[in-house]
């Protein structure tokens, strides 16, 4: 390839920045990059074992299958695959989506489906359609860290509802809704990841699902169900999605091929009632006209082969083993005071440490041992929360690395625990007795989710 000379622009001066600052939309003031950006820059070093990402394992996808499908696309549909496509997505892609949703017991009307550029775009388009600055949006605490910047950039007032091991505390949601009623306000939607939630790894109980759907119906409230991991279940009984329980009147559904096939193809979808969908389509036209036609062809070819379920089954086997490995390593290497979730599916474990440990600071220490995780504060709008928790990913790295990574994190935690005990003369607390230590900062009480250490014999 011929070498093209780069033109590098003169860097801006601070006075230039001020000039541009006057032009920025108000929303840029709340569009904040992740708190951990600079620390995370270091996690990309090859020697670092990263339990920080949310990466599915794409290494077992058969290269031969990929090559055969792309070749077939080239031979049979080059012109179409390289052309623009409809904003809603190809009907054939939607057929694949209906098939995937059917596997979880849902039966959407194909006309209610739009193919999006990843599930992330679906979150963005839903906000674009529904949220004016200052509108209330409700989500879980902790919530998907990637949703936080979307809510912020639409200047939503985001209220977080605590989770426990049965997912979002719907009774707390009811109290919040009643409080908002008093102010004459209501949320534009309630965002939930009911299955193997990112980051907490918890699953909403059937009872709460029913109650949430009932509430939505009574109050004509929209619920946005984000379900990237539903088919990645390793244990327990599948629970009906909110969409199925509701029938699609008040639940907007978000799905994705990212975790069951590939995040690189950037294919997700949204299912919404027709009046909402109409606006979402207009929003998508403005955003990017259509989702990649090339990768839509890939999905069509892939599904026509008919072995997509087998691939998911193979992923489930891999992730189940890795979860077991991580849970085993946590038992071996984390202190008695730590608690963690034992998800029945998905990609993440949420671990909570004694409240005097700030996991952002702990990350700095862990990085010196070449291991990384996501500090819990990334999952909260109020950055003073989640300070003692961390998200650990078990899908992206192999068993050996999981064991070694957890061992290293355990080592730096043990050092902090020992230091704290030396400082306060305290003996380690028995995990069951979660009495507060005298140094506890009262304002952070709500951080510690009442997640008990599950699976001690059960599951």
């Amino acid at each position, binding site marked *: 390839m011929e070498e093209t000379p780069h033109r*590098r*622009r*003169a*860097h*801006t*001066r*601070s*006075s230039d*920045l001020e000039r541009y*600052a006057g032009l920025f939309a108000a929303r*840029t*003031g709340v569009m*904040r*990059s992740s*708190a951990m*950006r*600079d*620390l995370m*820059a*270091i996690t990309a*070093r090859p020697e670092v074992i990263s339990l920080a990402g949310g990466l599915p394992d794409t290494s077992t996808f058969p290269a031969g299958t990929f090559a055969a499908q792309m070749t077939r696309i080239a031979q049979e549909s080059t012109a179409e695959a390289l052309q623009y496509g409809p904003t809603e997505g190809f009907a054939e892609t939607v057929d694949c989506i209906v098939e995937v949703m059917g596997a979880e017991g849902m039966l959407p009307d194909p006309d209610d489906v739009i193919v999006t550029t990843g599930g992330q775009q679906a979150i963005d388009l839903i906000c674009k359609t529904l949220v004016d600055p200052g509108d209330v949006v409700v989500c879980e605490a902790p919530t998907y860290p990637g949703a936080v910047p979307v809510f912020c950039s639409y200047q939503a007032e985001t209220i977080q509802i605590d989770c426990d091991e049965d997912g979002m505390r719907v009774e707390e949601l009811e109290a919040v809704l009643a409080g908002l009623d008093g102010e004459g306000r209501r949320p534009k939607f309630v965002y939930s990841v009911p299955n193997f939630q990112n980051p907490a790894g918890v699953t909403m109980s059937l009872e709460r699902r029913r109650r949430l759907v009932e509430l939505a119906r009574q109050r004509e409230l929209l619920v946005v169900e984000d379900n990237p991991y539903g088919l990645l279940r390793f244990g327990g009984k599948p629970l009906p999605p909110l969409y199925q329980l509701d029938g699609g009147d008040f639940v907007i559904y978000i799905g994705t091929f990212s975790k069951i096939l590939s995040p690189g193809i950037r294919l997700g979808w949204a299912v919404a009632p027709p009046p909402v969908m109409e606006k979402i389509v207009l929003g998508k036209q403005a955003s990017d006209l259509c989702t990649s036609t090339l990768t839509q062809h890939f999905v069509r070819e892939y599904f026509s082969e008919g072995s997509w379920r087998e691939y998911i089954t193979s992923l489930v086997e891999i992730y189940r083993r890795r979860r077991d490995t991580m849970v085993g390593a946590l038992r071996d290497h984390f202190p008695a005071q730590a608690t963690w979730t034992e998800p029945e599916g998905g990609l993440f474990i949420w671990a909570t440490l004694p409240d*005097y*440990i*700030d996991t952002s*600071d*702990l990350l*700095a*220490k862990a*990085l010196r041992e070449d291991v990384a995780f996501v500090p819990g504060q990334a999952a909260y709008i109020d950055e003073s929360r989640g300070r003692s928790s961390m998200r650990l990913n078990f899908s992206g790295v192999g068993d050996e690395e999981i064991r070694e990574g957890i061992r290293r994190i355990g080592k730096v935690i043990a050092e*902090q625990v*020992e*230091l*704290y005990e*030396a*400082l*306060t*003369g305290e003996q380690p607390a028995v995990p069951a007795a979660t009495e507060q230590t*005298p*140094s506890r*900062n009262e304002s952070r009480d709500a951080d510690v989710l009442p997640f008990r250490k599950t699976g001690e014999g059960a599951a």
Partner: protein
Amino acid sequence: MKVAVLKGGRSLERGVSLRSGARVEDALERLGHEVVSIDADGDLIKRLTAERPEVAFVAMHGLGGEDGTVQELLEILGVPFTGPGVAACARCMDKVLAKHQLRDAGVPTPDWFAFNETAFRELGAADALSELEERLGFPLVVKPSRGGSALGVKFAASWFEVPEALVSAFSYDNRVLLERFVEGRELAVSVVGGEPLPVVEAIPGGGDRYDFEARYEIGRTDFVCPAKLGEEEASAVTVAALAAYEALGCSGFSRIDLILGADGPQVLEVNAIPGLTDTSLLPQSAEAAGMTFEGLVERILELALRPAAA
């Protein structure tokens, strides 16, 4: 001239350093220099030996790049470099050492106590903490001794918050200091070649006073340059800053952070290699003094090549 720009490295401030370095590289290219861009890693010596630059521009922050380590290697290779020398870098990076030097030289700095982890783990230093209340009072500031920016810096409003703040600070270094909190205006004086530039005032836009993000993001903190100070105040601040620069043996350029409280200016720390990004304070001060970023970079290079700097 062939200039090697050293940036990145493994410190926690890698991200900021990459931005500083990129900006310096642009300026050097526009000044007509031949730029060799080096992300300081295991190949640093090999790269420097192979490229044989006439001078190295050190745009690294934090441990490894700002503490004298890289400077020592450059001395061994005989490559002149920008900014303070080995000893001054080592002194500035270690806040405890720096504060001793400042106090010995009569430069005002807030009272403090320093502890290392061994003192707590093996010598029962926790029992001495109760003395703090009497000697320093609350609130106080807990900081890692060596650590750039505001990482690991916590306030303790009362005795009960001290252990938690110490655990955080010890995440970054095995020595921490507990410093008297001085209420006042936050100022920074950049010095280039012994000459002070206009004073910058940082006005936090709400939230935590010491917020790592706020330091590098537009809009989180307002910076005023030149700071609105009376003639006497400005002079007292500049005198204190220059005295700190001298006391720590800085050369080339550095930035002195101070608090202007009721009892006059107090030096908090000296940054041997301050940030050079779009939003950094040194370039803002230079601009206020009528110096372009290219002019600043050229001047810093000249200082590195001056015989006296060697």
